[in-house]
């Protein structure tokens, strides 16, 4: 193997100024992770699994419940393939699904900026209603706050969700083990690129539509099929790479991925090439990875393909030998993936 060094190969990462919160702290990458690990987990967590997954689970009487929350600050509010309303419903539905739970009840917390058009609010609410119907969840409680003009950005939506765990065993990173297959439920990068194209006025003529969709039925189908689910993770902020690295770290495992197996649609690839972005780090809103024992992989993929024919095994879990890592098998061999320290920025070089 040849040796190489000198200048940065991928362009610069976040820096300094850590006395204040930066956008990168919300980007889903390294800084978000550190915020959780250094601030929230020490303050709040009462067990090891708190704050390491999409949601928490706990017993209530003779049932095990899942509970999760997410705030949605997506701009623009309406984008090809969805809007903040459907996103807020599906996002929380999906986090419950990732706990192996059947989503049941949602709450809605709106923070609206003074001057926001009521007609637009109505559209968002209508979209939430439709998304809740489609995902078979009930929105049962809510809250509305209005903030002064200039102190918000139109509309922020929080949804929290409660679901009933249906998986027979915990679906958590800690159960991932060497030998597990890493299964991806469909093509990646659509949501993030659809948003970026509209938001940054990139003037992409072709509509890149978000993949925003509820995943609960898909997950429940796997459970019904008897697939042993070690862990599930929806691939939102930070994309596939970040999701996998978080799991590798929480489970203390390594993963070997086959780059060529990861499906990316041509327009997503085109847009990524143009902006110098890596689709592995681009957000999705209707895609997840499943970790299943190798002998369940075939059945899982087959079942998943009834929802999306692009579902496929993209790699496998191997022993970490003490150093968790996610490696991407490229032309010349394995390259280790890094968690982003912030949002990807368009590159020119």
């Amino acid at each position: 193997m040849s040796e190489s060094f000198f200048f940065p190969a991928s362009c610069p990462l976040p820096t300094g100024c850590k006395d204040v919160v930066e956008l990168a702290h919300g980007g889903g990458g390294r800084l978000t992770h550190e915020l959780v690990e250094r601030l929230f987990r020490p303050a709040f967590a009462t067990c090891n699994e708190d704050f390491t997954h999409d949601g928490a689970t706990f017993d209530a009487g003779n049932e095990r419940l899942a509970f999760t929350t997410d705030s949605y600050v997506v701009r623009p509010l309406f984008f090809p393939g969805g809007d903040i309303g459907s996103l807020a419903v599906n996002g929380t539905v999906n986090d419950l699904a990732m706990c192996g739970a059947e989503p049941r009840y949602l709450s809605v917390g709106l923070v609206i900026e003074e001057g926001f058009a009521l007609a637009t609010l109505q559209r968002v609410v209508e979209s939430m209603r439709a998304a809740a119907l489609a995902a078979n969840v009930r929105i049962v409680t809510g809250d509305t706050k209005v903030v002064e003009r200039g102190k918000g950005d139109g509309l922020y939506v929080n949804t929290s969700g409660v679901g009933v765990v249906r998986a027979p065993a915990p679906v958590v990173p800690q159960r991932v083990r060497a030998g597990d297959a890493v299964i991806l439920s469909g093509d990646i990068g659509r949501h993030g690129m659809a948003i970026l194209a509209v938001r940054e006025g990139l003037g992409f003529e072709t509509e890149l539509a978000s993949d925003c969709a509820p995943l609960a039925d898909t997950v429940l189908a796997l459970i019904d099929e008897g697939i042993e689910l070690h862990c599930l993770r929806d691939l939102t902020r930070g994309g596939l790479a970040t999701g996998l690295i978080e799991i590798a770290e929480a489970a203390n495992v390594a993963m070997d991925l086959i780059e060529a197996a990861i499906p990316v649609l041509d327009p997503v690839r085109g847009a990524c090439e143009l902006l110098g972005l890596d689709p592995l780090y681009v957000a999705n809103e209707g895609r997840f990875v499943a970790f299943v024992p190798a002998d369940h992989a075939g059945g899982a993929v087959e079942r998943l393909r009834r929802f999306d024919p692009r579902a496929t095994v993209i790699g496998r879990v191997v022993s970490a030998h003490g150093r968790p890592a996610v490696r991407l098998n490229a032309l010349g061999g394995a390259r280790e993936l890094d968690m982003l320290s912030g949002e990807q920025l368009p590159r020119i070089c």
Partner: protein
Amino acid sequence: MKHVDEWRDPAAAHRYADAIAKIATRHWTIMEICGGQTHSIVRHGIDRMLPPGITLLHGPGCPVCVTPAGMIDTAIELARRPEVIFCSFGDMLRVPGERDSLLAARAHGADVRVVYSPLDAVALARSHPERLVVFFAIGFETTAPATAMAVLQAEREQLANFCLLVSHVLVPPAIEAILAEPGNGVNGFLAAGHVCTVMGYADYEPLAQRHHVPIVVTGFEPVDLLHGLYLCIRQLEAGEAKVENPYSRAVRREGNAAARTAVAQVFSVQAQRWRGMGEIAASGLGLAPRYRRYDALARFANLDVPAEHANECIAGELLRGRRKPCDCPAFGTRCTPEHPLGATMVSSEGVCAAYYRYRRAESRHAPGEQEARTTTGTL
């Protein structure tokens, strides 16, 4: 995607790798100049496909990394002015100046916008006549035509609220500087394909001859890179030292006439400081006298670019292959990836960052099987 996929074909790539292995009989050190090529090499693992005797050196071809720290400080000073909308390419935002980055400045209130093209900055100036739009014009010969066109459009529309903070750099003088370094150890170069798309490659011919190094004009995809390396090694093995152009689908010897004309009209060649490397004669572009009014530094009387602080960072010496990160007194203590002092600590693939991750005694992870992969060679 046509004109991409063909050049990523694994079979083709492996055929070149095999060919290289077949012809390489000695140790060769080859530098790819361009950060884009470096990126592609690491992303696709091209370096791992080469025989152990071939060492790739990553050249100073990342425009954001060679932009002087003082220039970034000036950028931040401009960006903080309330009337200014400061526009930059995205990858510039994270690079620290002497202290802060533009991203940090934005978090503290500066109006910093990411643009995809200099023309986006012109459009902002058009739509915000009450603000002053400053575009951070960085980049090599490839990007200079885009900046030139922004100036020409602003001139034609008489946009008085548009100007540039210019830090354009030129490749051949940098190659010359590296080769002029005694004991530099570079046997051959992959010339940056897209720089050549604009400028052609005639300028490299005297260089190749004078220093007796093969220079191969190379594209960015795996097959392009392996093809370029193959040709370079073939020359080295044959004792040749000429300029070759396997990237002929995108590069002609004379470059792009229209683009060169625009650059020549808007800019003049001048001495330029490179981060960590000091000043290199005739290695930069400044606005030509007739466009001086678009120069932010001329516009703000009190604004100038502070000289580089004699700080602890020895990245310049690393670049010349003279020292290693662990020789740096700040390494791992005052300089970390979260608080970098130099550009080579900024990226996870940079030399200092790589050493930080895998070579510190205090590393949280015991060195494992992956370590070999990131070993950096001696020159």
